[in-house]
């Protein structure tokens, strides 16, 4: 483990210190090493929360898990979305701290309003959880009777968390989310950084530019 971590550090320091030309020439080897080192480092890295309390993290994880649920494939929980959001709120999304600080209690107030005796989202059944989140859908719809008190704070919080959940599920795993590329496995995106044709179903039998022109001309003639 230590060996992998130090290799990774060496690699990241090395890349910034070397010329672009060198990096280009050694690109494939570099990527293979980076991917390997990254995976090794990640499996060993302990997860520490920087913004949420563990209770809050449980709530965020529960909400994210309804935004992208786990079924026969991984969801937001398996992709470690809560850790991506936690890290984001102390780094690239510090501006959203207030949205979370005020929004989560507002959403929990909605939980209490809808389900007597409950105060936490994570205590509800999945069906009840969806019902809470759908209450924000209804507020979005124009002119429809509102069943609950307006809560701009909770509304804004849910929309922000929805966007953060998608980002944390689908971002390149090198940037702190999408653990084990779980999100990319779900959407069918390969992890490699380099690709070669054929890329997909419709180009695998492409005969080349000149031949394709003739083939299409022949087909047109037949008709």
């Amino acid at each position: 483990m230590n060996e992998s971590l130090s290799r990774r550090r060496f690699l990241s320091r090395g890349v910034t210190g070397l010329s672009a030309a060198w990096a280009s020439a050694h690109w494939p080897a570099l990527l293979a090493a980076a991917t390997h080192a990254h995976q090794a480092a990640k499996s060993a890295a302990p997860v520490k929360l920087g913004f949420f309390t563990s209770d809050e993290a449980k709530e965020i994880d529960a909400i994210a898990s309804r935004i992208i649920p786990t079924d026969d494939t991984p969801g937001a929980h398996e992709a470690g979305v809560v850790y991506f959001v936690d890290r984001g709120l102390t780094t690239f999304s510090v501006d959203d701290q207030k949205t979370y600080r005020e929004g989560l209690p507002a959403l929990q107030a909605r939980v209490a309003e809808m389900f007597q005796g409950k105060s936490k989202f994570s205590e509800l059944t999945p069906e009840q959880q969806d019902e809470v989140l759908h209450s924000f859908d209804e507020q979005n719809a124009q002119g429809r009777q509102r069943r609950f008190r307006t809560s701009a704070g909770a509304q804004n919080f849910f929309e922000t968390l929805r966007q953060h959940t998608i980002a944390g599920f689908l971002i390149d795993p090198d940037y702190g989310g999408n653990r084990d590329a779980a999100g990319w496995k779900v959407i069918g995106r390969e992890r490699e950084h380099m690709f070669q044709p054929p890329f997909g179903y419709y180009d695998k039998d492409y005969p080349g530019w000149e031949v394709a022109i003739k083939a299409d001309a022949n087909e047109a003639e037949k008709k």
Partner: protein
Amino acid sequence: MPEPIRYKTSDEVDFVVIGSGAAGGVLAKELSTNGFRVVVLEQGPYLTEADFTHNEVEVLQRNQLTNRPSLQPTTFRKTPHDKARRQPALVYGRMVGGSSVHFTANYWRFHEIDFIERSKVGPVPGAALADWPITYADLEPYYTKAEWELGVSGLAGASPFDPPRSKPYPMPPLPVKSGGVIFERAARKLDWHPFPAPMAILSQPRPGRSVCVQCGFCESFGCEVGAKSSTLATVIRMAEKTGRCEIRPNCYVHRVEINAHGRVIGAAYFDAKRVTHIQKAKAVVVCANGAETPRLLLLSTNRQFPDGLANSSGLVGKYLMMNSGPSAMALFEHPLNDYKGVAVSRILHDFYELDPQKVGFCGGGGLDARFDMTPISFATTGYDMGGLPPGTPKWGKEFKATLAHNYTRSLEFVSHGTSLPVENNSFSLDPNVNDAWGLPALRMTYKDHPDDLKLGAFLRARILELLDATDAVQKWASPVEEQEFAYHLLGTCRMGNDPKSSVINADHRTHDVKNLFLCDGSSLVTSGRGQPTLTISALAYRAADRITALAQKGEI
């Protein structure tokens, strides 16, 4: 490589070039190669390949490579009678290499018609359509020079609508993608003429630059392997190697300085710590893009030019054109995996030149097949269309299932068309909003010419016709709407022979100030049909020749 030269601000260099993008990078290289001492003042940072990532949050949401709405607010209004409201109105590359770093790398030449459309179709009500003072033939050698020096992949002669060229492309087209094959087959069924897209991305390696690795992160991102032919990856390095050119990043020019004789003497800029310096120069070339170039002139007022430097025509900032074109998404049965590879592999130009008598509007366009959405942008609806069909739930089981099924099976057909020059469409200084440096913000005024909207409807119909000729299982098109956001910043200091109806002459010299030159998207007289970057770089190669000739004759 020796350490690049550093000049003192008190050194009177031959040229200050403001901006280092598709035009500024080329001018820096050409002028320094021709023996001149050059300082390039670039607003943004000096990043290199090692700094580039696939981090969608940093690049797309936090504007790592582009102008920052939080520091550089913009305002928008449709007409001069409306009150401008604060909203993001444009995007441009804010770094060494400018927008040539993050652009998609579509690299079309303009066609002959683009330079002479006014003569050919006559006046268009509500538009100041004009011929260029130069023709396609004048620019052709510089198109060729740009394609060869910067590195462009393509297939000469593949499109019957291509204008004449003196040399083929320097390297073959990039690999076709599934989306390109679908596009190509459908277009031929309709007797249209699809062809391999010319792209400023390497299909063959060059010294110090890798061949494209097909990673798929072209649009909005910097290329980590130097395969995208930005000015950063090409001419800027050549400029530094001359030993006569200094690239000075993090310099925000806010005033072109002028003396009592009406001559430019240098450029005043804020450094990274917001301290003002004045770099002295014998001449200044502004290449700050079609928004920031007119803004800088409007900021540089003095007694002789109370309405802005070189603005005796009153046209600085006017005739803004940004190209337009609706798009459509389609879903197919099998995986295309079009997230791999460059954004665009096939295009067509059958509708580039249309007969206004027949179609009822002036303009034309091209179509492409592309997939340029990163995973997060595919899953969300941003300021462009996201990748999911309308009506898809925004969260939950069905959202996830649609995302999982569609990501590899989706394709976009995009059109690119004319914007006509309209005097009210402009960049100006907002009297009520300042940027983080205390300077008046950019105010965009824009309302599409009615012909542009008719063209949009025409191109949208062609896209749907093309999609009907495919096996798409589902398709949906964006509506034709008036635009409020600009990617292409064109026409705002237009070129012309008459000082009353243009800002610069055919040498890119301002009509009013002998040693002040402008070259970037602002120089364009017409918008072309989209994809203006090659034309901007070709103009810069030509401008460098013209400026060098003037300097050698002692006429600057």
